[in-house]
Every structure is written in structure tokens, then in C-alpha cells.
């Protein structure tokens, strides 16, 4: 539970600055610092257990079926990172209090910072892959907000966009990798994944998974070739750079490398990809850092280079490389964060970050200068400071690797070269800024910062020195615990001593120091050479690239989404032809071995009529009324087919729906043109005909192949249990109201929604009322035929009686709620047609939308009633009663459910048709604004 609080406290903390915004700045900063301080205490509370090699776990199931749980794990690695995040975070809060100008919104800054802190803690503490990914993306988003904190600067907005695009895209790749891993391992639980190294690495997906995973890591940790976003993110306020871009966020990628080291590393592919990327980043970053005139630019490239160094360590695969990597993570975080803060102080107190202007600051700010010099020396790897120790370990490991076979000796050489440049740019940071003459063209006279602004730098620099002097004593246990979490099996022995005797790594360090000094002294030639190279503006080319990509996409989109329905349908159908047609070509014969039924005269006649009517519909489709008549013949033939092939329920349904549909289309013709103009060119007709006939051929063949194959239906279950379990002999009806009652409930809901949608579509429709038919003939004067109205009146009670009969017998004989509802609806519609809306309205003033609601409620209530008896939703019940007069009677709860179906069908059908019919009268639905 304490683990959850470590995560929740900073999250709650993001609200604190919002509420304390009215207090003075120091109080607001102090209040903001409290939640992370408590979280840090909670973390330290676990310190003993963790440093002894244990781990703490928090588990809360959420949606176990999807593998979504809230799992938190605090082991050595997570502890190390959480310590950095919370510790440096607290220092940053203090620092930002003095850094931010009065016009900057401090609460906003702190709120974003706390959000980011939560996200980072979430990454390092997560014990579930999907949960980890969520926090991963949250860091991208919160860092976007932080980088664009000064949103009035175009540079900040562009830099933030770029960082979000690059890290966000990497995050998607990471998600893909996680999903693949989840599929492979069968769980998103981190511990299970880490234990499945063999399974993952031997699977065919491993290269894909690894590449996607590394894309996520490398984009986040600014590895070459994705490093370009980091220098541009320097538009952020300096506390952000110190926190996100040196100590925490850019380390998230490296954290993942370490986290998944047990599961993904150990293969040739891992070593090649990770080490080459790390090496390239190390060299490029170190080289470019020397030429940056902006203080933060120099630090940014130096960060890239150090991140490359750590990546290279994780890619080398020697025993101690991972340990050295972890050690360097700690050291880099301390010296780089303090250097960023020092750069921020210089910027703050002298008004510039340009090293061409900043010179000789020693005389103005000696204390800050001393602090910065110590930190820069640690960065260069000067002995007695922490940077020296991890760099020594790095050099030592480069000597032990065998990555490039016989060419492996190149790596230590290149590592020394990178060390040379690292010394050179560190010297530039010290010498150019604090010595080297007098400041040029500064707008204000530099001076020391406020006392407490320096405190965070002092703390970190003190750590650099102390760790440099007493490494084993200070962080030995922490490093051991973290290494245990990363390395499978035993952690090999290593020594954190300062002095290892005269050996090759020491020689490399000395070479780096001497070479770096030489290069720095002769930097003029190198600068001249660098100036002759074309200057690549990463931001502009990136934005150009993004713009071109977006244009390509919109071209593709416009090609696909041309706004033409006919085109979409043709494309969809063509893909259907491909997808369904190709597998059919694999079949040798369509016939599946089942004997065909003989053709009799009735069926042959029916089929012929159906074919002729369908053909006639197509031929006469421009004469709409004729086409409508023809299609009704098709529908009639279909219902006859249902009768012939033993589906009386379907035949009854089809017949009544047919009536309703034709009436509906007739009504529609009142509002639509009666003729379709000839529009399609002949070529289009040919195209459509060929597409249609190809689809027809495929569907027909599929249907034939299906029908002639013998099969075992699951329906035997329904037939066996219909009477005993559902209490009815009409199996179709029992399936509808009992076995698959829940489906039916969904279906009548859809019906109700569709009718309500229609009702709403018809309100406020612009009124137009054609006064004549398509040929210009006026409508008949006599509105309602006497014959029809007389017949229909006497028909109504009869029809209602029939529908009640059909309803009640439905459970045992063909019939049921659907059919009875349709019959009733048809009978009532007939009244509308024969007598007119006014006549019906006067006698039966019902709002059909209420009927739909009542029907759905009846069905729902029937389902819910089974809860009263502690049964699952829609459990049916039936029993037999011996009643006087009526005799033995069966009562089933399914009847009540069927009643709901009946009422819904009646209501929906009438709502649809009556709403449309009323359009021509004064009863048209109008939109009523209700308050």
C-alpha cells in the first residue's frame, strides 16, 4: 500500500500548487515540495529491505481477463530510479522557486512538474507492461507541456512539438512491442515476462519485438539518429532541462533497457543494435558538443553523448558492463543536473547563455564558478570525482568486449576518442565561461544568485565529490541491489575503489585528459574546419519532413476519401471479390458430397418468378413505381421459399415485413422523384454489372458449397431442450425468447433506437409537399376510398384477434411476438391509409415512442425479475396449472418477454410509418424545445 502512495502523492501534489497559488511564492513552493518529500520518506522506509536485495510488490486486479492489473514493484533498479526522481525533483522545486520570473505562472509550472514526476515514478514502479506504457506516454505529454511552458516563444512550441512527435512515435513502437510480448508470453505481468527470456528470444517475432522495443527506448533516450529532438527541447526553462533532459526522462529509455535486460538481451542482435547505436551516439554527441556556443546546447549534446555511453555499456554484454551502466546513470544524473542548474544561474544572472559573450565570470560569481567547475570536472572524468570512477569502469569494459570479432580493438580506441572530446568540451565550459578575458556585450552585470538558488547545486556537487571519494561506502549497496535486479543470476564481483593500480583504463583516462587539453588549446583550427561544413538545422528539416509527410497523407486520404459513395462501394466490393474469391479457387469442386433434393414444379415456378421479378426490378429501376411493384413480387417469392423449406415463422415474418416495407417505400416515393434520370455512362454500367455479377457468382457458389456439405449443427441441443428447458415446442420461438433471449433484447433495442432516430430525423424537416405526381397529374381529389375504409374498419378487430392468437400460440406453434406485432401494426397502418391521419388520431391518440419504451421496459423487467429469485438475468420459468374451465394451462415467463417484443415491434413500426405518413398532414412532428 505504501507503494501506491509513493505514486499517488506526487499525483495529488500536482493539485497542491493550483490551490496554493494565492500564497506567496516560497509558501507555494514549500507546499508543493511536501507530497514528494513524503513520498521520498515512504521510499526510504523500504530502503533496508531493498538494499538487502529484496523487493516489494503491490497488486490490485482491475480487468484480469484483459491482463489489466495495477501492479507496482519496488526492487533495486526501481529504487535507484525512484530515488533520483524524487531527490532531484525536490531540488528542482527549490531551484525553480528562484529561477522562474514573477510573470511566469509558478503554479502551472509546478503542476506540470508534479504530473511529470508521477509519470516517471509510474514507469519505474510499474509491474505491468501496459501500465508501464501508459506512464511512458504520460511522460511524453507532460514533457510537452513543460518544454512549451514559455508558449509565447515560437522556438519553445516547435521544440515541444518535435519532442512530442519523436518520443510519441517511439511510444507507439513500444506499445507494439509490448503487445507482441504480451501475445507471446500470454501475460502482461512484468515478472512473468522477465522469466520468459528463452521463450521470447527463440520466437520468430523476436527481431521484430526487439526493433520496436529499441525504437521506443532510443527515441526517448535521444540516441542517434533520433537525438535531434533533445537540443531543440532546450527551449524549455532550465529547471526542466535539468530534471527531464539530464536526470530523468531521457534516462527512461535506458531504464527500459535495464528493466528488460534479463528478457531481451543476450543475443547477437541485441549486442549489435544496442552497442552500435550507443557508440555512434557517444561519438557524435561528444564531437558536436564542442562546437555549441549555447551553454545549454553544449550540455544537451554532452547529455546525448553520455546517454550513448550508457547505451553502449548495456549493449556490450560483458559481465560488469551493466553494472558500470547503472553506476554511470547515478553519476551522470548528479553532475549533469548540477551543470544545467549552474548554466541556468549564469543565464539568470548575466542575461545570456552564449559562450562567445560569456567570459571571465569567475570574478563576478566565484562560488557558482567553483561549483560548476567541480561538476564539469566530474563530467570530464577527472580523478577523485564520481565521473572518473564510472568512466574508468567503462574504459575497462570496452577492453573486455568481443563485439566486432577481430576488429573489437576499435571500440576502446573510439571510446578514448570520445573521452578526448568529452574533456575538451568540459574544458570549454570551464575556461570559456569563467576565464578567457572579459564578458562581451552582456546586458547586465553578472552577480551571484540568491543564496538558496545555489543550494541544489551545492548538494549535487557535494555528492559528486563524496561519491568520488567514498564510492563503496556511499552507493555500494544501492548499486549492488540495482545490479541484482538487472542481471539474471549472481552479480559478478567488482570493486568500487578509486585506485586500481597502473593499468590500461588508467592510461586511457590519462590519454583522454591530455588529448582533450590539446584539442581545446588548438580548438581554433577545429572550429574553422567545422564552420566550412554545411549547417544543418534539425528543427527546420524535421518540420519540413513532417509537412511533406502530412501532405502525402492528405493526398492519399483525398484519393481514398473522394466523397463518392459509389466509389467506396466499388472498392469494398472489389476487395470482397479478392478476399472471398481467391480461397474459392483452391476448392477442386463446389459440390460437397450431400445429395441434392429433387426439384418439383412449385419450387421451379417460384424460382422462375423470383428471377424474372428481380431482373425486371433492375431493368425498370428508373421507373420507380414499377420497380417497387416488381420487388414486392421478389419479397413474396422469398416468403414462399421460406414456407417450402420448413420455416413457417420466417414466412409469416417475411410476409408481414414485406407489406410494411412496400408501404414505406410507397410513402417515400411521395417525397422523392418518381423517375431516376439516366446518368451513368455506359462504361460505368459495364463496370457495375461486372462487379455485381462477380459478387453474385461468388455468393451463389459459396451458398451452393455450403448447402451441399454435410454438417453437425449445434441445434440438436435446442431441439432436445426446447420442451424440457424452455417449455415450448416451437423451437425457433424458444430460441428467440429463451435460449438467446439476450440477443433478442438487443435486437428489439436496435429496432427501438432506429425508430426513434427516424422520428428525430423527421422533426423540423423543411416542408415540401409535391402537389402532383411525377407526370404532372394532380393527386386524386377523393382522398380516401369508401370501399377501402369500410373493409378496413371491419378488418381491424379481426386482425387484432388474429395477432393475439398468433402471439399466444407462438411458443408452441409458428407465431410469436415479432409476427403478432407486425400483424397488428399492419392492421393499424391500414386504418391510416384508409381513413387518414385525422380520423385515426381522433380515435387512438397514442405517442408511439412511449409504446416503444413500454415494450422495452416490459422485456427488461422480465429479464430483471429473475434476479429476484437469485437467478441470472433472463432466466426463464414455466409451469403447468390446472385451472377450472380452462383446463391444463402452461404459464411461462417467456410469454411476458415476448409481450415486450410484441409491444416494441408494434410501437417501432407504427412510429416509423405514422411519422412519415403524418408528414403530409398538420400532425407532422415538430421539434419542441423542452427546458
Amino acid at each position, binding site marked *: 500500500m505504501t507503494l501506491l502512495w509513493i505514486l499517488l502523492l506526487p499525483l495529488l501534489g500536482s493539485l497542491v500548487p493550483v490551490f496554493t497559488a494565492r500564497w506567496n511564492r516560497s509558501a507555494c513552493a514549500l507546499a508543493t515540495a511536501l507530497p514528494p518529500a513524503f513520498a521520498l520518506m515512504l521510499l526510504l522506509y523500504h530502503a533496508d529491505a531493498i538494499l538487502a536485495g529484496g523487493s516489494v510488490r503491490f497488486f490490485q486486479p482491475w480487468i484480469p481477463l484483459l491482463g489489466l492489473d495495477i501492479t507496482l514493484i519496488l526492487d533495486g533498479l526501481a529504487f535507484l530510479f525512484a530515488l533520483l526522481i524524487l531527490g532531484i525533483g525536490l531540488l528542482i522545486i527549490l531551484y525553480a522557486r528562484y529561477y522562474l520570473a514573477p510573470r511566469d505562472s509558478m503554479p502551472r509550472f509546478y503542476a506540470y512538474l508534479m504530473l511529470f514526476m508521477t509519470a516517471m515514478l509510474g514507469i519505474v514502479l510499474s509491474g505491468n507492461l501496459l501500465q508501464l506504457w501508459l506512464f511512458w506516454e504520460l511522460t511524453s505529454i507532460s514533457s510537452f507541456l513543460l518544454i512549451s511552458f514559455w508558449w509565447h516563444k515560437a522556438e519553445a512550441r516547435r521544440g515541444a512539438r518535435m519532442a512530442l512527435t519523436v518520443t510519441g512515435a517511439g511510444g507507439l513502437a513500444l506499445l507494439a512491442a509490448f503487445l507482441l510480448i504480451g501475445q507471446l508470453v500470454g501475460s502482461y505481468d512484468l515478472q512473468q515476462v522477465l522469466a520468459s527470456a528463452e521463450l521470447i528470444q527463440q520466437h520468430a517475432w523476436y527481431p521484430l519485438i526487439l526493433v520496436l522495443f529499441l525504437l521506443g527506448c532510443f527515441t526517448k533516450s535521444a540516441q542517434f539518429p533520433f537525438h535531434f529532438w533533445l537540443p531543440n527541447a532546450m527551449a524549455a526553462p532550465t529547471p526542466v532541462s535539468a530534471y527531464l533532459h539530464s536526470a530523468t526522462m531521457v534516462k527512461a529509455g535506458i531504464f527500459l533497457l535495464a528493466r528488460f535486460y534479463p528478457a531481451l538481451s543476450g543475443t547477437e542482435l541485441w549486442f549489435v543494435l544496442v552497442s552500435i547505436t550507443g557508440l555512434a551516439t557517444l561519438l557524435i554527441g561528444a564531437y558536436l558538443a564542442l562546437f555549441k556556443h549555447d551553454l545549454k546546447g553544449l550540455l544537451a549534446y554532452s547529455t546525448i553523448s553520455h546517454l550513448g555511453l550508457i547505451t553502449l555499456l548495456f549493449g556490450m554484454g560483458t559481465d560488469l558492463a551493466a553494472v558500470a551502466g547503472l553506476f554511470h546513470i547515478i553519476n551522470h544524473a548528479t553532475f549533469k543536473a548540477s551543470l544545467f542548474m549552474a548554466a541556468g544561474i549564469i543565464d539568470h544572472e548575466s542575461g545570456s547563455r552564449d559562450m562567445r559573450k560569456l567570459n571571465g565570470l569567475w570574478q563576478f560569481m566565484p562560488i557558482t564558478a567553483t561549483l560548476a567547475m567541480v561538476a564539469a570536472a566530474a563530467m570530464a572524468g577527472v580523478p577523485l570525482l564520481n565521473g572518473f570512477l564510472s568512466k574508468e569502469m567503462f574504459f575497462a569494459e570496452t577492453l573486455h568486449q568481443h563485439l566486432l570479432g577481430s576488429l573489437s580493438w576499435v571500440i576502446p580506441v573510439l571510446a578514448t576518442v570520445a573521452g578526448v572530446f568529452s574533456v575538451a568540451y568540459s574544458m570549454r565550459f570551464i575556461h570559456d565561461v569563467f576565464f578567457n578575458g572579459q564578458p562581451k556585450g552582456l546586458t547586465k552585470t553578472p552577480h551571484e544568485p540568491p543564496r538558496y538558488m545555489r543550494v541544489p547545486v551545492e548538494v549535487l556537487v557535494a555528492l559528486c565529490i563524496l561519491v568520488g571519494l567514498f564510492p563503496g561506502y556511499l552507493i555500494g549497496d544501492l548499486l549492488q541491489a540495482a545490479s541484482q535486479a538487472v542481471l539474471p543470476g549472481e552479480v559478478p564481483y567488482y570493486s568500487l575503489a578509486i585506485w586500481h593500480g597502473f593499468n590500461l583504463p588508467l592510461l586511457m583516462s590519462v590519454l583522454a585528459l591530455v588529448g582533450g587539453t590539446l584539442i581545446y588549446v588548438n580548438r581554433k583550427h577545429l572550429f574553422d574546419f567545422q564552420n566550412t561544413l554545411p549547417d544543418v538545422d534539425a528543427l527546420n528539416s524535421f518540420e519540413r519532413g513532417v509537412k511533406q509527410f502530412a501532405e502525402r497523407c492528405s493526398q492519399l486520404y483525398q484519393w481514398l476519401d473522394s466523397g463518392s459513395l459509389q466509389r467506396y462501394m466499388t472498392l469494398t466490393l472489389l476487395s470482397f471479390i479478392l478476399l472471398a474469391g481467391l480461397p474459392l479457387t483452391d476448392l477442386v469442386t463446389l459440390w460437397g458430397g450431400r445429395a441434392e433434393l429433387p426439384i418439383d414444379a412449385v419450387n421451379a415456378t417460384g424460382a422462375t418468378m423470383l428471377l424474372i421479378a428481380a431482373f425486371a426490378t433492375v431493368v425498370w429501376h428508373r421507373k420507380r413505381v414499377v420497380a417497387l411493384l416488381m420487388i414486392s413480387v421478389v419479397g413474396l417469392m422469398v416468403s414462399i421459399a421460406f414456407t417450402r423449406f*420448413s420455416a413457417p415463422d420466417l414466412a409469416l415474418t417475411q410476409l408481414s415485413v414485406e407489406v410494411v416495407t412496400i408501404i414505406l417505400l410507397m410513402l417515400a416515393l411521395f417525397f422523392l422523384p418518381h423517375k431516376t434520370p439516366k446518368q451513368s455512362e455506359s462504361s460505368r454500367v459495364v463496370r457495375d454489372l461486372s462487379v455485381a455479377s462477380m459478387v453474385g457468382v461468388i455468393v451463389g457458389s459459396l451458398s451452393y458449397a455450403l448447402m451441399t456439405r454435410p454438417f453437425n449443427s449445434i441445434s440438436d441441443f435446442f431441439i432436445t431442450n426446447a420442451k424440457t428447458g424452455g417449455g415450448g415446442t416451437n423451437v425457433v420461438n424458444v430460441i428467440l425468447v429463451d435460449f438467446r433471449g439476450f440477443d433478442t433484447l438487443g435486437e428489439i433495442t436496435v429496432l427501438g433506437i432506429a425508430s426513434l432516430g427516424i422520428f428525430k430525423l423527421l422533426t423540423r424537416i423543411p416542408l415540401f409537399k409535391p402537389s402532383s405526381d411525377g407526370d404532372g397529374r394532380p393527386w386524386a381529389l377523393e382522398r380516401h376510398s369508401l370501399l377501402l375504409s369500410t373493409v378496413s374498419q371491419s378488418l381491424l378487430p379481426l386482425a387484432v384477434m388474429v395477432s393475439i392468437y398468433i402471439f399466444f400460440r407462438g411458443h408452441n406453434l409458428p407465431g410469436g411476438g415479432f409476427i403478432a406485432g407486425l400483424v397488428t401494426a399492419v392492421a393499424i397502418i391500414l386504418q391510416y391509409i384508409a381513413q387518414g391521419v385525422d380520423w385515426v388520431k381522433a380515435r387512438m391518440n397514442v405517442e408511439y415512442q412511449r409504446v416503444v419504451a413500454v415494450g422495452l421496459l416490459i422485456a427488461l423487467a422480465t429479464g430483471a425479475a429473475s434476479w429476484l429469485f437469485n437467478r441470472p438475468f433472463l432466466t426463464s420459468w414455466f409451469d403447468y396449472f390446472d385451472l377450472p374451465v380452462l383446463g391444463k394451462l402452461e404459464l411461462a415467463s417467456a410469454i411476458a418477454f415476448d409481450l415486450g417484443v410484441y409491444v416494441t415491434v408494434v410501437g417501432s413500426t407504427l412510429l416509423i410509418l405514422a411519422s412519415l405518413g403524418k408528414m403530409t398532414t398538420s400532425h407532422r412532428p415538430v421539434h419542441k424545445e423542452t427546458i
Partner: protein
Amino acid sequence: METLVACCIGFLTACGIFLMLRGRTFPVMLGLTMLSYAVNLFIFTSGRLTLRGAAVLGTSEQYADPLPQALVLTAIVIGFAMTAFLVILAIRARADLGNDHVDGKLPDADVVRKESR
């Protein structure tokens, strides 16, 4: 018999699709109706053809498969609801947009032809 039924289903599908590919709303509605006949028959016949075997217990020796029948029964009713929705949408589109083309506007060639008249 199966051959005949399969031919009918294929032909209904082809007719329905051809009509659905037309440019005006009314033929599209006819096409959709026709296609739903075809689809309903297709699903129904996936339970194989049975003569004189209605799935009412105690009325025959061999029962037709009741499951596709139950599926198709609701499909018919929902198909009606969807057709109705489409019809009303078409009417509304005609009222709001002034034409009954499926894209809501007449194709350019058509406009030109009209203007040149």
C-alpha cells in the same frame, strides 16, 4: 434443388449490388432490400434445405435447423428498421440538399450538362 436456390441467391445478390451502385437514393434502397433478401436466404440455407420439417416438436420426423431460422427472423425485422432509417435519411437529404444523389450533390458532369441545356 440446391443448385436452383444457389442460383437464386447469387442472382438476387448481383441485382441488389447493381442497384446499390446506382447514383440515386431510391434504387439504392431497392438494392439494399434485394440484397437483404439474398443475405437472409443465404443465412437461412446455411442450415441446409429441409422439406416438410418445421422445427415444431412433434410434427415431423426430421427437423429443419432452427438456429439460422431464429437468426434470420430477427434479421428480417432489423433489416426493415435499417431500410426504414435509410429511407427517411434519403427523404431528409432530399429536403435539405435539394437532390436525391447519394453523395448529396450532383456530379460535376451532370451540372455542366444541365447548364448547357
